[in-house]
Protein backbone atom coordinates (compact mmCIF):
# COMPACT_ATOMS: atom_id res chain seq x y z
CA UNK A 1 0.00 0.00 0.00
CA UNK A 2 1.16 3.48 -0.79
CA UNK A 3 1.35 6.16 1.84
CA UNK A 4 1.43 9.66 0.34
CA UNK A 5 4.41 11.97 0.89
CA UNK A 6 2.07 14.40 2.69
CA UNK A 7 0.55 11.83 5.05
CA UNK A 8 3.49 10.99 7.27
CA UNK A 9 2.18 11.82 10.75
CA UNK A 10 3.89 9.64 13.33
CA UNK A 11 6.34 8.09 10.90
CA UNK A 12 9.80 8.22 12.43
CA UNK A 13 11.37 7.38 9.09
CA UNK A 14 9.61 10.10 7.02
CA UNK A 15 8.57 12.78 9.48
CA UNK A 16 11.44 12.83 11.95
CA UNK A 17 11.45 15.00 15.06
CA UNK A 18 9.21 18.07 15.22
CA UNK A 19 10.91 21.47 15.19
CA UNK A 20 9.16 23.28 18.04
CA UNK A 21 11.20 26.45 17.65
CA UNK A 22 9.55 29.81 16.98
CA UNK A 23 10.10 31.24 13.54
CA UNK A 24 9.22 34.50 11.85
CA UNK A 25 7.41 34.36 8.52
CA UNK A 26 9.35 35.89 5.66
CA UNK A 27 7.76 38.48 3.36
CA UNK A 28 7.42 36.04 0.45
CA UNK A 29 5.65 33.56 2.70
CA UNK A 30 3.10 36.17 3.79
CA UNK A 31 2.65 37.14 0.14
CA UNK A 32 2.09 33.49 -0.83
CA UNK A 33 -0.65 33.27 1.79
CA UNK A 34 -2.19 36.55 0.54
CA UNK A 35 -2.32 35.27 -3.06
CA UNK A 36 -3.83 32.05 -1.79
CA UNK A 37 -6.54 33.97 0.09
CA UNK A 38 -7.22 36.18 -2.93
CA UNK A 39 -7.61 33.20 -5.28
CA UNK A 40 -10.04 31.68 -2.80
CA UNK A 41 -12.02 34.92 -2.45
CA UNK A 42 -12.62 35.18 -6.21
CA UNK A 43 -13.57 31.52 -6.42
CA UNK A 44 -10.59 30.39 -8.49
CA UNK A 45 -9.47 27.65 -6.15
CA UNK A 46 -10.64 25.54 -3.29
CA UNK A 47 -8.45 24.43 -0.43
CA UNK A 48 -9.15 20.81 -1.36
CA UNK A 49 -7.83 21.39 -4.86
CA UNK A 50 -4.59 22.90 -3.58
CA UNK A 51 -4.12 20.03 -1.15
CA UNK A 52 -4.69 17.54 -3.95
CA UNK A 53 -2.17 19.37 -6.16
CA UNK A 54 0.45 19.14 -3.39
CA UNK A 55 -0.32 15.48 -2.82
CA UNK A 56 0.15 14.71 -6.51
CA UNK A 57 3.50 16.48 -6.80
CA UNK A 58 6.64 14.53 -7.51
CA UNK A 59 7.65 13.17 -4.08
CA UNK A 60 11.28 14.16 -4.35
CA UNK A 61 10.30 17.70 -5.33
CA UNK A 62 7.71 17.85 -2.54
CA UNK A 63 10.28 16.93 0.11
CA UNK A 64 12.80 19.42 -1.25
CA UNK A 65 10.42 22.40 -1.05
CA UNK A 66 9.65 24.57 1.96
CA UNK A 67 6.08 24.72 3.21
CA UNK A 68 5.07 27.88 1.34
CA UNK A 69 7.02 26.85 -1.75
CA UNK A 70 4.66 23.88 -1.90
CA UNK A 71 1.72 26.28 -1.61
CA UNK A 72 3.05 28.33 -4.51
CA UNK A 73 3.67 25.23 -6.62
CA UNK A 74 0.10 24.02 -5.99
CA UNK A 75 -1.37 27.42 -6.89
CA UNK A 76 0.56 27.30 -10.16
CA UNK A 77 -0.75 23.81 -10.87
CA UNK A 78 -4.36 24.85 -10.33
CA UNK A 79 -4.02 28.11 -12.33
CA UNK A 80 -2.55 26.15 -15.24
CA UNK A 81 -5.11 23.34 -14.88
CA UNK A 82 -7.96 25.88 -15.06
CA UNK A 83 -6.35 27.59 -18.04
CA UNK A 84 -6.10 30.92 -16.24
CA UNK A 85 -2.34 31.11 -16.81
CA UNK A 86 0.04 29.02 -18.87
CA UNK A 87 3.32 27.59 -17.64
CA UNK A 88 5.09 29.77 -20.22
CA UNK A 89 3.46 32.94 -18.87
CA UNK A 90 4.48 32.08 -15.32
CA UNK A 91 8.04 31.19 -16.33
CA UNK A 92 8.36 34.39 -18.38
CA UNK A 93 7.20 36.50 -15.44
CA UNK A 94 9.59 34.75 -13.05
CA UNK A 95 12.42 35.46 -15.47
CA UNK A 96 11.42 39.14 -15.65
CA UNK A 97 11.43 39.42 -11.87
CA UNK A 98 14.75 37.61 -11.66
CA UNK A 99 16.27 40.15 -14.08
CA UNK A 100 14.78 43.07 -12.21
CA UNK A 101 15.59 42.03 -8.66
CA UNK A 102 18.17 39.33 -9.06
CA UNK A 103 17.84 35.63 -8.38
CA UNK A 104 15.56 34.81 -5.47
Amino acid at each position, binding site marked *: *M*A*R*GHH*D*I*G*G*SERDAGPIDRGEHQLEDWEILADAVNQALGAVGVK*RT*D*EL*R*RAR*EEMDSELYRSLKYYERWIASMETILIEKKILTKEEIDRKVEEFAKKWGEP
Partner: protein
Amino acid sequence: MGRAVRARFKPGDRVLVKMEDRPGHIRTPWYVRGKRGWIERVYGEFRNPESLAYGGDGLPKRPLYLVGFEQSQVWDKYEAAKDKLFIDIYEHWLEPA
Protein backbone atom coordinates in the same frame (compact mmCIF):
# COMPACT_ATOMS: atom_id res chain seq x y z
CA MET B 1 -34.74 25.50 8.48
CA GLY B 2 -32.06 22.96 7.65
CA ARG B 3 -33.17 19.39 7.35
CA ALA B 4 -32.02 16.87 9.93
CA VAL B 5 -28.61 15.33 9.43
CA ARG B 6 -28.92 11.75 8.23
CA ALA B 7 -26.14 10.54 10.46
CA ARG B 8 -25.54 6.85 10.87
CA PHE B 9 -23.73 7.30 14.20
CA LYS B 10 -24.48 9.19 17.38
CA PRO B 11 -22.17 10.44 20.15
CA GLY B 12 -20.74 7.56 22.15
CA ASP B 13 -20.98 4.99 19.33
CA ARG B 14 -17.84 2.89 18.91
CA VAL B 15 -16.39 3.08 15.42
CA LEU B 16 -13.62 1.53 13.37
CA VAL B 17 -11.82 3.61 10.76
CA LYS B 18 -11.71 1.74 7.47
CA MET B 19 -8.33 0.33 6.53
CA GLU B 20 -8.56 1.47 2.96
CA ASP B 21 -5.98 2.63 0.51
CA ARG B 22 -6.94 4.10 -2.81
CA PRO B 23 -5.71 6.85 -5.05
CA GLY B 24 -7.09 10.34 -4.72
CA HIS B 25 -7.42 13.09 -2.15
CA ILE B 26 -8.21 11.56 1.24
CA ARG B 27 -8.66 13.49 4.46
CA THR B 28 -8.46 10.49 6.77
CA PRO B 29 -4.86 10.33 8.00
CA TRP B 30 -2.94 7.11 7.46
CA TYR B 31 -2.16 6.71 11.15
CA VAL B 32 -5.81 6.30 12.22
CA ARG B 33 -6.86 3.90 9.47
CA GLY B 34 -7.79 0.58 11.00
CA LYS B 35 -7.98 2.11 14.51
CA ARG B 36 -10.91 1.99 16.90
CA GLY B 37 -12.44 5.07 18.52
CA TRP B 38 -15.75 6.65 19.42
CA ILE B 39 -18.04 9.37 18.06
CA GLU B 40 -17.46 12.48 20.14
CA ARG B 41 -19.69 14.84 18.16
CA VAL B 42 -21.80 15.00 14.99
CA TYR B 43 -20.85 18.18 13.13
CA GLY B 44 -23.44 18.01 10.39
CA GLU B 45 -23.22 17.37 6.66
CA PHE B 46 -20.55 18.80 4.42
CA ARG B 47 -19.49 18.58 0.79
CA ASN B 48 -17.13 15.71 0.16
CA PRO B 49 -13.52 16.90 -0.21
CA GLU B 50 -12.66 13.77 -2.18
CA SER B 51 -14.78 15.25 -4.99
CA LEU B 52 -14.12 18.96 -4.33
CA ALA B 53 -10.39 18.34 -4.75
CA TYR B 54 -10.95 17.49 -8.42
CA GLY B 55 -13.33 20.30 -9.28
CA GLY B 56 -16.44 18.26 -8.45
CA ASP B 57 -19.48 19.61 -6.60
CA GLY B 58 -18.81 17.49 -3.50
CA LEU B 59 -22.40 16.20 -3.50
CA PRO B 60 -24.08 14.37 -1.91
CA LYS B 61 -22.99 15.98 1.34
CA ARG B 62 -21.52 13.55 3.85
CA PRO B 63 -21.96 13.50 7.62
CA LEU B 64 -18.79 14.60 9.38
CA TYR B 65 -17.87 13.54 12.91
CA LEU B 66 -15.39 14.43 15.57
CA VAL B 67 -13.94 11.03 16.41
CA GLY B 68 -12.02 10.32 19.62
CA PHE B 69 -9.20 7.82 20.05
CA GLU B 70 -7.07 6.70 22.95
CA GLN B 71 -3.54 7.73 22.01
CA SER B 72 -2.30 4.46 23.44
CA GLN B 73 -4.48 2.66 20.88
CA VAL B 74 -3.14 4.70 18.00
CA TRP B 75 0.60 4.52 18.65
CA ASP B 76 2.87 1.72 19.71
CA LYS B 77 4.88 2.51 22.82
CA TYR B 78 2.64 5.44 23.81
CA GLU B 79 3.11 6.02 27.52
CA ALA B 80 0.69 8.73 28.71
CA ALA B 81 -2.29 6.39 29.10
CA LYS B 82 -4.98 9.07 29.48
CA ASP B 83 -4.12 11.13 26.39
CA LYS B 84 -6.75 11.31 23.71
CA LEU B 85 -6.72 12.22 20.05
CA PHE B 86 -9.61 13.90 18.23
CA ILE B 87 -9.91 13.98 14.45
CA ASP B 88 -12.60 15.03 11.96
CA ILE B 89 -13.64 12.01 9.89
CA TYR B 90 -16.33 11.62 7.25
CA GLU B 91 -18.95 8.92 7.67
CA HIS B 92 -17.92 6.87 4.64
CA TRP B 93 -14.60 6.19 6.38
CA LEU B 94 -16.26 4.72 9.47
CA GLU B 95 -17.93 1.47 10.32
CA PRO B 96 -19.52 0.26 13.56
CA ALA B 97 -17.08 -1.37 16.00
